[in-house]
């Protein structure tokens, strides 16, 4: 109880509240601009978090990412261009509703079910985290190895491209993580005599490059999106209660699917939205209406992507394994702020954990009024020409990377990873898998090598302990899953048509 009170005291501090408010507005604006994703909003926020207190730093990331995932719906609905990849699954549906004159209902559903989904995800975090923490206390390097490996496999499994290319990008990420001296032998690896590389490649400049600079490059070679016609909106929330009652089943299913996908290490909000939208269509009684402006899929997918956002913090907080690309960034911030992820976070820093829960709830509550304001202001914000936003973002990338270590080498890394990210994405290599490889590489290697040393080079102990055996089975089935699907389709052609 004392800890709960302490948590409230931590959250209600003026600097935390201001951080939540400002980063919410920031997240809403960035998320609503096409091409600027929630991950990019988070990555550009990191240099700012250096100068905040630990709780304020984490609060700003939570608030900005939640708002950005919601406000990605706005341009999707009004312009048929999703603001963030997480909104892409139902952009056509939302745009069809706008064309039917139901823009308010579509935007309201996005807002309302995002907020409810976020709260459902938070509840899952509150319930799951302590149980898993108890389990995690018994983990040894074998379990951590499998868990990290499972996270990497999930990241490749859910990528919406060829799984072989996804695995290749993950391995490239792991290779990048090898650079530097931080390895079992303390030997400089792949540094090519460059002193700056001895310390390894920091994840933040790599993330800024891959997610922000590559977007700037993509924008510069593609034409400007059409301007938004100015319009007046009616009541945003009217009718949402009726939708909630009518589609509560779909909403709950969306929440649950979102939570599960979020907890899986490596799979995030965009995947949750795709899976939930497809699921909603599959189980709907009115399947024919999908795509013509039917709110059902919108409800389910909107509930799902925000739920996954909160539950993505479960593996991040407990094991230091990111649930998605946003928590991959957040883990770095947690370490920097002395809130080292791990089961002991619950015993030693319980008040901080409660504070995180409160921030999640708070962010999802203020999302509703701020979201309504954002929807009303969208006509003005979306009219800001790209030619003024992108140059400023480019400078912010440079300054932000520089700020991570007051080191100009980071800016070179940002430029390099911008080009790498752009080239990879253009050729069907998912960059998210590479980023997770970079973030988790050191951990995978450490747990792998330590385990091998403990077992005297034998692979048997990797499968002997009960929990590690379960995790190993899951990982290996994730690895073999694409091959299984391929065989299945090959030998049952009738099934294939049914599935598609």
């Amino acid at each position: 109880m004392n800890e709960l009170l302490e948590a409230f005291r931590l959250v209600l501090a003026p600097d935390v509240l201001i951080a939540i408010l400002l980063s919410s507005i920031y997240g809403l604006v960035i998320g609503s601009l096409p091409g600027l994703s929630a991950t990019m909003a988070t990555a550009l926020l990191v240099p700012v978090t250096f100068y905040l207190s630990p709780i304020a730093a984490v609060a700003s990331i939570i608030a900005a990412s939640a708002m950005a995932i919601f406000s990605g719906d706005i341009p999707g609905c009004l312009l048929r261009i999703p603001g963030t990849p997480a909104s892409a699954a139902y952009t056509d549906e939302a745009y069809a509703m706008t064309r039917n004159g139901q823009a308010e209902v579509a935007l309201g559903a996005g807002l309302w079910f995002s907020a409810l989904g976020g709260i459902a995800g938070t509840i899952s975090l509150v319930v799951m985290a302590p149980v898993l923490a108890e389990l995690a206390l018994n983990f040894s390097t074998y379990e951590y190895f499998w868990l990290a490996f499972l996270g990497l496999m999930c990241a490749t499994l859910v990528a919406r491209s060829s799984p072989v290319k996804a695995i290749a990008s993950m391995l490239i990420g792991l290779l990048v993580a090898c650079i530097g001296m931080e390895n079992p032998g303390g030997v400089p690896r792949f540094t090519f005599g460059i002193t700056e590389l001895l310390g390894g490649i920091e994840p933040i400049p790599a993330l800024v490059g891959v997610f922000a600079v590559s977007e700037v490059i993509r924008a510069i070679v593609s034409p400007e999106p059409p301007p938004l016609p100015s319009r007046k909106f009616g009541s945003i929330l009217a009718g949402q209660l009726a939708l909630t009652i009518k589609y509560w089943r779909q909403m709950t299913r969306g929440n649950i699917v979102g939570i599960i996908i979020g907890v899986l290490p490596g799979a995030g909000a965009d995947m949750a939205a795709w899976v939930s939208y497809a699921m909603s269509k599959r189980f709907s009684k009115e399947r024919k209406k999908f795509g013509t402006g039917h709110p059902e899929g919108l409800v389910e997918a909107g509930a799902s992507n925000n739920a996954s956002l909160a539950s993505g913090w479960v593996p991040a907080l407990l094991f230091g394994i990111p649930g998605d690309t946003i928590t991959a960034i957040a883990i770095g911030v947690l370490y920097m702020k002395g809130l080292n992820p791990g089961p002991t976070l619950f015993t030693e820093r319980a008040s901080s954990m409660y504070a995180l829960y409160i921030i999640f709830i708070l962010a999802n509550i203020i999302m509703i009024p701020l979201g309504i304001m954002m929807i009303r202001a969208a006509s003005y914000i979306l009219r800001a020409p790209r030619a003024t936003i992108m140059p400023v973002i480019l400078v912010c990338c440079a300054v932000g990377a520089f700020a991570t270590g007051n080191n100009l080498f980071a800016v070179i890394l940002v430029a390099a990873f911008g080009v790498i990210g752009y080239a990879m994405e253009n050729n069907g290599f998912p960059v998210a898998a590479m980023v997770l490889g970079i973030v988790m590489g050191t951990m995978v290697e450490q747990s792998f090598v330590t385990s091998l040393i403990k077992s005297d080079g034998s692979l048997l102990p990797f499968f002997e302990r009960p929990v590690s055996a379960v995790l190993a089975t899951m990982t290996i089935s994730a690895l073999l899953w694409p091959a299984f699907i391929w065989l299945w389709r090959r030998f049952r052609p009738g099934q294939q048509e049914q599935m598609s």
Partner: protein
Amino acid sequence: MRLSDRVTGSFVATLGVLAAYGGSQFPPVPGQDVGPSVFPMVIGAGLILCGLMIALGVGHSFEDEAEAEADLAEIQGLSQQAMPVNPLRHRLRALLPPGLLLFYVYAADRIGFVPTAAIMIFASALAFGAKIRVALPLAALAPIAIHLIFYKLLRVPLPPGLLPMPW
């Protein structure tokens, strides 16, 4: 800049060969079988395997790649279809953002943050098709605002250079 799978696959495999070879050269830890060379070699082997699979098209039909691509094309908008017909100029424009970042690295310590950022913003705004009467005020004002936020509020030591700010 879409290359064929054969090209990207071979590139990945070559990277794998280099990683495995580089990994095998690292000195072992005395008295240990497992040292710093194991992990790069495992990754290298994986990359070689993946690269060959991509290059030879094995597993190309593993999953709904075509579907994903169709989705992607749809997401990235109808706008992509209206791409200008000058591919070379296009490719060159893609080099501008990383080029400007390298310019920042070169120039920031020499002429200071504000002039460097102003040049970056001016050049990229023009490349995005802004008119001069938009690009000029933006290049004049935005660096000062960014400097205020990062230098004054966040205490990032941005180099003053030729144009030190009064704060």
